[in-house]
């Protein structure tokens, strides 16, 4: 297991490196460099004095070869925990992102739990009662869930909530609780709001997982070892849970690897629609005004955390499936 862990972490290193390179490339994509933009920004306020300009140029290696800039950027992050400055707001990126990243991942992980709790039983039911009415209903909703884009579902739900329940949706807490300290009432209010993004973000994932679970289980249901278990005299439910479901669960667990990135993606776009205080609106805004260090840092951290999540899911998988562990 330890060996597996080490090997898996070693695999992660090139991925992390690639993520940082791609992010840096994205930062560099818009024409002009950071200082030009900053100078333009500050032109109204009297411009940038030469001393500051020189200091910043040194810090980011501006005007030097691209790889020097990359190294300086990485050095800032790795050794000083410095992600650069958001020039739109003129504050360090650090001050802006962590709260929002926290919410993004909190919602993503809650969504993952929601998906599991719905997809697992429905998928099993669907496979065991293949071609039953329940299976058709689950399949139908599964297809609908896959076909409705996240943001569309968010819009529809907001419309329905507003029109029929008179509830204004948006944000994670009601306006009166924003910037208030956490109290019991605020937590209750949060719960009243947070289910909607979770359901919206989770629907397509749940739909996908129901189909995966159903297909996996159908693959296993007719295997000889199931017949063996049946011939032993086990009840259908017992043998189902102990054998095929356990085996089918493995590919299911490994889906965290790709479901987590899609959840984070979905959360970002839904957050824009629902105006949640998470990464989404901040990233979109940063990209639209080309606040590239902020945008780049967000993309970098979101990607890295996702890679980390994938690693954890792989370890979880190795833990429950001996065949992977022993390879």
């Amino acid at each position, binding site marked *: 297991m330890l060996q597996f862990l080490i090997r898996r972490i070693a695999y992660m290193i090139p991925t992390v490196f690639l993520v940082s390179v791609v992010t840096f490339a994205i930062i560099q994509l818009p024409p002009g460099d950071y200082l030009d933009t900053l100078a333009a920004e500050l032109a109204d306020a009297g411009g940038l004095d030469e001393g500051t300009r020189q200091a910043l140029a040194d810090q980011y290696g501006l005007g030097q070869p691209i790889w020097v800039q990359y190294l300086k950027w990485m050095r800032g992050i790795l050794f000083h925990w410095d992600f650069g400055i958001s020039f739109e707001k003129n504050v360090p990126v650090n001050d802006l992102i962590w709260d929002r990243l926290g919410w993004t991942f909190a919602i993503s992980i809650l969504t993952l739990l929601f998906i599991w709790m719905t997809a697992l039983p429905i998928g099993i039911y669907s496979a065991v009662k293949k071609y039953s009415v329940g299976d058709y209903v689950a399949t139908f909703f599964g297809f609908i869930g896959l076909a409705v*884009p996240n943001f*569309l579902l968010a819009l529809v739900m907001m*419309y329905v909530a507003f029109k029929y329940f008179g509830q204004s949706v948006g944000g994670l807490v009601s306006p009166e609780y924003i910037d208030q300290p956490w109290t019991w009432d605020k937590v209750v209010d949060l719960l009243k709001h947070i289910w909607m993004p979770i359901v919206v973000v989770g629907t397509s994932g749940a739909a996908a997982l129901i189909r995966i679970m159903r297909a996996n289980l159908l693959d296993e249901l007719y295997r000889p070892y199931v017949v063996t278990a049946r011939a032993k005299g086990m009840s259908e439910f017992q043998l189902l849970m102990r054998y095929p479901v356990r085996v089918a669960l493995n590919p299911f667990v490994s889906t965290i*690897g*790709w479901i987590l990135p*899609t959840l984070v993606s979905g959360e970002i776009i839904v957050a824009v629609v629902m105006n949640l205080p998470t990464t989404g609106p901040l990233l979109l805004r940063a990209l639209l005004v080309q606040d590239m260090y902020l945008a780049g840092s967000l*993309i970098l951290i979101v990607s890295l955390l996702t890679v980390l999540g994938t690693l954890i899911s792989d370890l979880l998988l190795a833990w429950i499936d001996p065949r992977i562990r022993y390879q």
Partner: protein
Amino acid sequence: MSAIDHSPAAIADAPAAPILLGPWALMWRKFKRHRIAYASLWLVGFIYVLALFGNFFAPQAHDETNRRGIFVPPQAIQFIHRAEDGSARLQLHVDALRMKVDQATMRRSYEAREGEIIPLGFFVKGHPYQLLGFIKADRHFFGPKNPDDVAYFLGSDRLGRDILSRIIIGTQISMSIGLVGVAVSLVIGVSLGGISGYYGGWIDNVIQRVIEFLRSIPTIPLWMGLAAAIPLGWPPLRTYFIVTLIVSMIGWTSLAREVRGKFLSLRNEDFITAARLDGLSDWEVIRKHMVPSFSSHIIASLTLAVPLMILAETSLSFLGIGLQPPIVSWGTLLKEAQNVRTIIEAPWLLIAPGTMIVIAVLALNFLGDGLRDAADPHAQ
């Protein structure tokens, strides 16, 4: 068999065994039995025909604004027209509308004008256009008989443009992005997946790491980052291709994985070894034996990739960082319905394009699913 033959061999003739069908015929038979998938095939075909002859099917010019037709709700098509003298006759029509503005709230409303109708018909003369881009025409499938009249079957937007016509024209962009994106995915996915699976070794390792990398980062932020870098001043066609490229960047990875997996499992199959022992070259083995044995799977995977690309384009355009107006796609149409206030005032801005997306994606998913089931010889 002659009548005088009484030898034991004569009665040895058993009833003939059922004729065995070829793999494609079997697949087709299996596919046809999947009724929803079969219906979806027709639906998808219809949508692409709609896109191909978009100008012919669109009742109005999609970019024609109308100041007296802002936020018109969808108009119902009526069949029976009662003239003032009380006689009724069959005449497809919609009511002619008059706009009223409430001065206090500044809200618009529309009411039917007494006794005035807009007659509708098939193959009517309308605005001129180029069919398939090069045939001059001015006939439209369905619309007001008088070219100067306007009818909004699915309502109008904030500039008084016809939503139905815009959806039909948007079909061209949205559905073709799926196809072009899939074509790009096919080329990259099959070649890289094939190389990876056939040769193995370090090259396989490198390609697998790249795929893992692409799959492990969240797509939306990455797409957003890339798409946001497209300069606003670029011509629409170039933006279109770049967006397509960005969208297909992820699609090829699953295809490459699938192709690689097939190559790996086929490489050790006896019939491949046999073909190689027969002296066929690598290329011949791939072309004559390997590709035919998994091409049905590829077709199914490709079909399932199309809706993903459509959804990706829609999401990006909706956020305002993919395709930009004046390009009309389902995503840019939905961008008009971005906040709840607009949706409350004009729900059709959300419902009409939204339904279209859901129908198209559903049909493509059903189709792909049916194909995949049919392609799998072991599935029941």
